[in-house]
């Protein structure tokens, strides 16, 4: 468990290090996030203030004489107000002769029980009052019912209970000031809404921008890293898994940055903000709210591992179903050929049912978790209102505070109820990150430390006691010694597994010899820059690989060749004719898996590619295996001219291909067993002759 946490913190650290180039944008995101959250939390506060100060706007009436007594008293420890507090109230309140008017919240600031006490002792009026300024509009009502009002200059006071008996139009007239404050508060509210809108969008946009950059950086780095690995590594590692690292796992990292990190930050900001605002509004109610949070925390602790486990199970089984399905779809013909449909249906049904079980398990956990969180949230509201009612009995809470609390509590529980989904994304992002960094930490490169630049390549090739094995303990080449003079064509023959293809792989440094060295024009291959070496020595491989793109692009493979040069190469390779007959000629796109070309045609294109690149040394690796004999014959003609100017190593099964070679080497068990021309080897009466006779035994008996 400890190890696991440590591992995920390293993954997290490495992930975050990808943010460093984008510090400014990260800072902007955070600022936008904070502003948006702050504005959002201010919204209920505005409603609270507006309600308390302008919509309700009730005032308490205090006896000035009592306050003055407090002011002058020397035994102020026993009285509800200290002289300083009484002095402050006298300054803050509005004086109407012997009465002082104050908003209830002003008394709450001094002490929660103060208003209650004042009412009981009689120096605060039991009823609430409203204040307003007299104006021509209010003159009519003031004159018709003067007994309702207290006056001080142009200010008037009226009992709340009397006010509520008046008709609405009259009340509106009396409360002109409050109405205009209400309009201002509404404007403020609108401004805050706009602030939330702008900064939320800015934050989403900036976070996505960063996510996209990080993804591109990660992908570019990953592919570069993978491509740099040696072929022995790439041969072992299935392409599909590498593709899903670069494509899908990086995508979950994006989720991590744009979704998880941001929402955790936001949720954190909201929750801290709510608690802060709650305490600022009323610390007793805030405590009650925090107590309600405790069961929610227990619930999360209790469910967390169960939820993560259920999510993991679902992911695993989804992938089991998908792997099975994609395999069987690809191999449907094989499946039907061996009449395995019924068996396969059962297998699929089992996997699918397993997935259903996991999904239902996850659903049940969520079906318990989320409603309980909602229940806790509702209970918290109920608790607050009940507690507030108790406070209300003693007149120590304003309605606005209560409303703000109900609003804020809902915001507070929002992040808690979808915490499970966020944990899930976090977990899969971590898993993806772990896989990506594991891949990045694996390194098996062919060292490219060559410093001697190749200028003109002659093409002299020399193997000096070269040893090699793909698997330790299973040598393929055992002290191979031979040299090829520039310009000559050498054929290598031998049984499967005798090491023919290995020679080609060592020459292009797809692998390096485990012992011995290979020299090109007298220079060890490892002392040459890798890319120059590979431009000088080029193979045509057994399995021709064509890239998505046109045929012309596949021949040029990035060289800046004009159409003429490409066509010339194709002519030499005898590929021109069939390419011309294709619907779009050289511009014909190569279909998926090159399925629009026959195996032979693909070989011809590969030949044209080599001719276009004009290397000093070429390797034909069983290149003719897939071409029918007639086509191969055509190809031979084209190649003959090409071979004249360069060193060529030919690895082919068909003896007809080998006949023209200057030298034939017979490879057996990792060593050169025989070498010489066809005639010399026939005369030698050894392995070559035996190989030859197996293939042509039938003809010799008939002719």
């Amino acid at each position, binding site marked *: 468990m400890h190890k696991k946490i440590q591992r995920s913190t390293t993954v997290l650290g490495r992930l975050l290090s990808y943010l460093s180039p984008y510090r400014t944008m990260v800072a902007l995101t955070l600022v936008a996030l904070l502003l948006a959250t702050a504005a959002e939390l201010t919204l209920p506060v505005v409603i609270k203030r507006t309600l308390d100060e302008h919509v*309700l706007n009730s005032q308490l009436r205090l006896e000035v004489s009592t306050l003055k007594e407090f002011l002058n008293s020397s035994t102020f420890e026993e009285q509800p107000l200290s002289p300083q507090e009484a002095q402050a109230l006298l300054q803050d309140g509005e004086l109407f002769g012997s009465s002082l008017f104050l908003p209830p919240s002003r008394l709450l600031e001094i002490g929660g029980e103060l208003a209650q006490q004042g009412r009981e002792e009689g120096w605060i009026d039991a009823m609430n009052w409203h204040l307003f300024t007299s104006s021509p509009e209010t003159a009519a009502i003031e004159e018709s019912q003067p007994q309702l009002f207290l006056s001080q200059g142009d200010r008037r006071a009226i009992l709340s209970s009397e006010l509520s008996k008046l008709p609405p139009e009259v009340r509106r007239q009396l409360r002109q000031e409050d109405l205009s404050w209400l309009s201002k508060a509404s404007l403020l*509210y609108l401004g805050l809404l706009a602030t939330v809108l702008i900064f939320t969008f800015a934050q989403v946009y900036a976070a996505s921008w960063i996510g996209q950059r990080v993804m591109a950086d990660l992908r570019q780095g990953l592919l570069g890293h993978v491509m740099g690995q040696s072929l022995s590594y*790439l041969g072992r590692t299935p*392409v599909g898994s590498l593709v899903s690292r670069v494509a899908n796992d990086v995508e979950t990292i994006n989720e991590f940055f744009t979704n998880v990190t941001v929402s955790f930050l936001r949720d954190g900001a909201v929750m801290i903000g709510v608690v802060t605002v709650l305490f600022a509004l009323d610390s007793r109610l805030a405590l009650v709210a925090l107590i309600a949070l405790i069961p929610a925390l227990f619930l999360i602790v209790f469910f967390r591992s169960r939820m993560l486990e259920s999510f993991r199970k679902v992911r695993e089984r989804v992938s089991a179903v998908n*792997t099975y399905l994609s395999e069987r779809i690809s*191999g449907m013909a094989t499946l039907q050929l061996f009449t395995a449909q019924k068996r396969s249906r059962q297998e699929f049904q089992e996997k699918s049912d397993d997935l259903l079980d996991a999904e239902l398990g996850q659903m049940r956990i969520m079906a318990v978790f989320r409603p309980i969180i909602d229940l806790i949230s509702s209970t918290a509201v109920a608790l607050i209102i009940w507690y507030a009612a108790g406070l*209300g009995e003693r007149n120590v809470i304003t309605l606005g505070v209560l409303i703000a609390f109900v609003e804020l509590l809902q915001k507070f529980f929002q992040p808690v109820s979808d915490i499970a989904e966020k944990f899930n994304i976090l977990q899969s992002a971590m898993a993806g990150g772990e896989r990506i960094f594991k891949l990045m930490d694996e390194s098996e490169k062919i060292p490219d430390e060559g410093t001697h630049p190749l200028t003109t390549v002659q093409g002299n090739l020399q193997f000096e006691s070269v040893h090699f094995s793909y698997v330790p303990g299973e040598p393929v080449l055992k002290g191979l010694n031979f040299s090829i003079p520039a310009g000559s064509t050498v054929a290598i023959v031998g049984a499967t597994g005798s090491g023919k293809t290995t020679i080609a792989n060592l020459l292009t440094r797809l692998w390096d010899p485990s012992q011995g060295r290979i020299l090109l024009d007298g220079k060890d291959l490892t002392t040459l820059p890798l890319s120059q070496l590979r431009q000088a020595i080029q193979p045509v491989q057994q399995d021709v690989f064509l890239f998505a793109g046109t045929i012309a692009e596949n021949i040029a493979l*990035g060289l800046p060749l004009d159409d003429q040069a490409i066509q010339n190469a194709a002519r030499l390779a005898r590929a021109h004719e069939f390419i011309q007959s294709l619907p779009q000629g050289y511009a014909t796109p190569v279909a998926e898996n090159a399925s629009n070309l026959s195996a032979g045609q693909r070989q011809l294109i590969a030949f044209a590619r080599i001719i276009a690149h004009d290397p000093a040394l070429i390797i034909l690796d069983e290149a003719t295996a897939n071409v029918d*004999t007639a086509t191969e014959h055509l190809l031979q003609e084209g190649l003959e001219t090409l071979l004249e100017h360069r060193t060529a190593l030919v690895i082919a099964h068909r003896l007809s291909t080998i006949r023209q070679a200057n030298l034939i080497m017979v490879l057996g068990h990792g060593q050169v067993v025989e070498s010489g021309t066809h005639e010399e080897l026939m005369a030698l009466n050894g392995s070559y002759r035996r190989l030859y006779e197996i293939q042509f035994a039938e003809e010799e008996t008939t002719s």
Partner: protein
Amino acid sequence: MPKSSKNTSSGSYHRELGALKPYFARYWPAYALGLFFLILTDFGQIVIPRIVGAAVDIIATQPNAKVVGQRMLWVVGLALLVALGRYGWRNFIIGSARRIENDLRRDYYNKLTTLGPSFYGQHKVGDLMARATNDLHSIRMATGMALIALVDGVFMSLVIILALFINYGSLAILLILPLPLITAMALFLGKLIGPIFKKVQERFARISEHVQETLAGIRVIKSFAKEERSLQSFGTINTEYGKANMEMVRFWGMLFPAMSFIAGLSTLSLLFFGGRNVIDGRLSPGEFVTALAYLGMLLWPAMGAGWVVNMMQRGAASMKRINEVLRQEPTITDAPQASNTPPKGSIQFKNTSYRYPLVPERATEETTKNQRSSSSKLAQDSLPPRILQDVNFTVEQGENFGILGPTGSGKSTLMKLIPRLLDPPENSLLIGQEDIRTLRRNALRRSIAMVPQDIFLFSETIRENILFSKPQATSEELEQAVDAAGLRADLPFFPQGLETQVGEKGVTLSGGQKQRIAIARALIANPEILLLDDALSAVDAETEERILENIFTLRTGRTTVMVSHRVSALARCQRSVVLEEGRITATGTHEELLKNSPFYANVARLQSLEEGMDHA
């Protein structure tokens, strides 16, 4: 295409979703219970704010902790009811949606196992996988969450709007006025996002494709030192993908903030107009609080409405794609009274001709091509060419029979007709005097094992792959097949021998190794007829000789038909045919063919290094 689908969209949605009826029928009691729980939940949710509002009024006028406490107990009780209801609807409705998905997935796969090569030729694996994953997912959403949101949204909004109108009169209009805007916006942006979303997906696919292709062709890239170039173009693809994503963020990122903004306008309208009404006494503070809570509750249906519409549309579109597969009729079917006895005896081709059936997609491609090329070609190209023409020959029972022909002459087509992977015309292909079209395909195929040109192995162990054709085979049979296929010599090269995992999660095999495993798989079934379609092309002549020798010895008395490019291999057969441009140009023994077939003789001559020079 898109035009016609748009015109009939609403009608076709019904039709497509109608296909779900039998599935719904299976789970209707669960759905009914789920809906009951949903309504229960909604009831509780609507009543709670009223009690809270009343309590606030009590606090505002004559605070009484005892009375309020009793009310709050009611609230807790209702909250419990709501929690129970939520548990209920999740369990019953979401559970049923999962079950329907599972049923659909099963039916989809079962259908796939009945469809033949012509279907798989038209549908890529990726596309069929997308249907099984993305489409099933959106159907699940449509039958689960979207359905819940629909019922919940309609019920809640109707009741709340009604309550608002009864309690607040004309003020209600002002309050809910902004809410339809949210729905409209969700719908509008949903439409706008559609094409961008598609673009993002396409560009994401380009990323996978590029990585896939680069790594599959890594030998070529390294050999030609093109790493930099490949990385550069990957950089471009990455940037493009990022751009498309940002384009989407411009809409998507705006959607939720804008919806919250509009929802805020609703609260603003309550503050302004409702506040005035509280001031002039037409509204009590408690009613103000209740309205605030109700507006919060209306928000979700307003946001959800757009989502529901999008989900339902997507679900219907997905169902259409699933239906396409489920309604697919296999092009090759068993005759009604087909025999279930595996055939035995000679294989007889009688005037067999074959052309690939015209498939709709290909036909349109063909026409566009023709518009570009000359009009005279049009008639020729509109029908696919005949691959085989009047093929006549018989392979006797127990014979080893060879086929030679240039690339594209129809050899593989010929081989695929025998197990009815392709459908031969009636009465043109007989095994043991029976037209293979009168046999059940499974019966026919029990007599046949084939090693095709493009071999498919499953990502399982080598042993499992070999046993695929006969899971109950004994270990002696396994050993025998491994030996005969020449696979024994490969085993030391596999890290765990026969238990080595192959494919995506295991080792990468060479072409020759794949062929030998596939041969072992075919041999272990010990079929009456063995078909080898160029099955030894990747091994050298010596090894091919040895493997053929083993196979023929092991299969004495049973029939083997093989395609090969090597005359030396064909010479081991009793008889061979030469196939050129879909026609049989010669039949006979090796010696007869050397005399009678110019093509066969030419190939033999080329392969034997020009006779004259041999003894020079």
